């Protein structure tokens, strides 16, 4: 577990597991001084895997936590799923990956989320899924990968993804 800015800056690989709300996660990063080094390594393209709310933190804000400021890697706001579908989304959804994706593949992945990024961000290779409308299931650029789903709970599909990320040439 990273304790300091140096840990984040110097680590070969960094995983940002999704825990808690958008606002609570950003507050925890801010409090421990990890926001700036995390943002820097993502911008520099150092190997970073961000999961669940970790993907949402790439946006500038979220309906979940009005006022909270995200990493702002992409110019987007996180929104709640529509009333027409079950929320939270619990279960395995069909992920369709852009052919340019190197780490994320087509297949079923396990999701547990009430909020999502609706539009594919420019400049990233994306994988989309659908829950009351399309949303970003994953996005990747070089060694930086963000997944709305949980690869660690997605059986063989998730294990394959983790291995491809670790094996990427740095």
């Amino acid at each position: 577990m990273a304790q300091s800015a140096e840990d984040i800056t110097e680590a070969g690989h960094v995983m940002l597991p999704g825990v808690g709300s958008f606002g609570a996660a950003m507050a925890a990063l801010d409090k421990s001084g990890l926001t700036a080094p995390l943002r820097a390594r993502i911008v520099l393209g150092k190997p970073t895997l961000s999961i669940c709310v970790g993907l949402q933190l790439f946006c500038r804000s979220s309906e979940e936590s009005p006022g909270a400021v995200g990493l702002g890697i992409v110019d987007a706001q996180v929104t709640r799923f529509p009333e027409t579908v079950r929320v939270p989304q619990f279960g395995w959804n069909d992920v369709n990956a852009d052919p340019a994706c190197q780490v994320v593949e087509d297949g079923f992945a396990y999701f547990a989320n009430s909020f999502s990024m609706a539009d594919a961000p420019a400049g990233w290779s994306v994988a989309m899924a659908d829950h009351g409308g399309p949303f970003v299931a994953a996005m990747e650029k070089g060694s930086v990968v963000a997944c709305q789903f949980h690869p660690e709970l997605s059986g063989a599909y998730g294990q394959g993804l983790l291995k491809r990320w670790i094996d990427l040439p740095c």
Partner: protein
Amino acid sequence: MLTARVIPCLDVNSGRVVKGVRFQGLRDAGDPVELSMSYERQGADELVMLDVSATPEGRGNALVTVAAVRQELGIPLTVGGGVRKAADAGALLEAGADKVAANTAAVTRPELLTEIADHFGSQCAIVAIDAARKAEGDGWEVITLSGKNRTGMDAIGWAREAVDRGAGEILLTSWDRDGTRSGYDTDLLQAVSDAVHVPVIASGGAAKPEHLIEALQSGADAVLAASIFHDGDYTVGDIKRVMAAAGIPTRLDLTADTP
């Protein structure tokens, strides 16, 4: 799109999987780690583990069992049984559960659901509701203490309140059908799933694939079953092939389907 989930349920007593009708006449049904791995290979979408231990020693063993299962399992794990305070939920999550189910203690003290949701998120806070048809009048009442107590509390109203208080999912067991092998109570499922917007897991009464399909067509988002899998009547893959043929969105991984 999101697929319907098939969820084998393991009742665990002092580190062993047991089976019995309404917790009476418990018989040994195997090792929880071996069964969990087998169900994942068959295509299970999640697992539920209910700790039915009656003693503090058994409760302690449950944490060890959760950790042992987590070590080998690659799919989500919900754990219930004996969750009375947020710290109990925290211990189970720490041991490797992804979601925690509260039942009797949530009925006695509904704030428990809010406490779990505030500490760990609504996506971790599952309310397990045991419901039985009211002896008089329409509807269903909430049953607690593993069937020992009929509360008189309206099950639909309780489902709504539990969600308002922070529950992110409902594990709904028909006490009339549990162990009867006569199919899920589809009227109950329809009523609860119409009343709330969170996912509903159907439980109690499954004996054949058609029962699971009926439940999913009656509003359930997921179907839980125990004995049909433990007894070897069907593999999870058997069930999911029938579901897919019936037009239900299903995650099929045929390469992994071995008993």
